[in-house]
């Protein structure tokens, strides 16, 4: 990819497995940015004390936030292969990569189960 900064044309190479992973990264960053605002506006919305008109206004405000800012859109992909399914949360790896590394003794404390 080429990116223009101050008129110099430079090549920019990333280290993400695929574009889907990149988009997921962008969603995470944006969710982090807007986290506080979303929390506060939701605190106003999910309320029985404040007047309903204010809550409706808050509803419209949160709908106006960019779509990528909500944390629900984040998908825990595998870190090595960007696989969206079969990912164990503790290691952030898909089952296939996990098995590969564990069999080659790269995972500390992981042993084949036998009982």
């Amino acid at each position: 990819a080429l990116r223009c900064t101050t008129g110099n044309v430079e090549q920019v190479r990333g280290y993400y497995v695929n574009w889907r992973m990149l988009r997921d990264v962008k969603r995470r960053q944006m969710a982090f940015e807007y986290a506080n605002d979303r929390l506060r506006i939701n605190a106003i919305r999910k309320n029985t004390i404040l007047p309903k008109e204010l809550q409706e206004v808050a509803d419209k405000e949160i709908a106006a936030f960019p779509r990528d800012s909500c944390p629900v859109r984040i998908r825990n992909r595998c870190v090595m292969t960007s696989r969206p399914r079969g990912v164990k949360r503790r290691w952030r790896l898909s089952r296939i990569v996990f098995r590969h590394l564990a069999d080659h003794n790269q995972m500390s404390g992981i042993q084949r189960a036998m009982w």
Partner: protein
Amino acid sequence: QRSFSTSKAISKESEESSAPKTGEKEAKVKEKKPGKSGKENLLDLLSAMKVDVTTKKKFQASKSQKSKEQPRVHPESMESATSMFQKATTEQQTQKESLSPELVAAASAVASSMPFKKSQTESELLQQLRKHESDTEVHRKGETNNIGNIIADMKVGKRPNARSPNRPANQIRFDDDGRGYTHDRGVVNEFDAVRRRKSLFTGKRLNIFPSMTDTTETEPKEVSVPSLWDIELAGQIAAVIKHLPRNGFEEMIQWTKDGKLWQYPINNEAGLEEESDVPFHEHVFLDSHLEDFPKQGPVCHFMELVINGLSKNPYLTVKQKIEHIEWFRGYFQQKEDVLKESEVY
């Protein structure tokens, strides 16, 4: 790990002294909104107050304003706390000095306003505060004091040097029974002569190096703010010196310096060192930030709930909590017209 839920401790203290009254007090809190945010002389006010007027809320408000008005805890009192902790078993009377005088005055004022057993409530309150101070000090200083005490008590054990064999050193040693090797003495015997000196510092001075005092005096005179050129030069030197990591250990060291790897043993409060200096009452008593909000109505109720929740949150810094409150202030000021339509603001 510390948690900032000291509101429970404080409520426990007040409950100790007046257990049957808490039910009535909580009912009265809901009826009367404490509108006294003026900066009167609180000690006089507290002592003049009667029982049915004092509520848990006012105790908190008075305590927060008291501590906010006067300067922070002095470092001398903190140091005295650690030294008192070391001699905790012997000197209990002097422990009163470890608390800051403002806290002591506030505690005595509150105790005098309580109905039963003023001296007992005061001593209990002071005890709780002292315990809290000593606990935070222990957390901060770690276990260093105890280890120092333990090591000081241990005695150095001496192993008696095995008597050197009685043949002279330059005589050739040979194996008697044809084993092919002699009994290996090791390097120990060579250092025997050196070790026989009682300590390092006996013996004649050689006067090769200049003495310590001259070098240490000249150093502190030349401290100045490093300029950009100095920073650049330091960066260049570091880049030249830095070698690629030869093995996994060096790689991990480099990553730890970069911040990519956590520091072991894991410190739960790794990025939050400055936060531990913030005293607990700034986390818990957030009423003072509520001054620009309306005193009655749903907005006030909502902000009280917000403050209640924030005071129980141990994961946020005080700055973050204040930012939350300020955002709400700005938001309600923006939506004034909407709120006025529903006659709330």
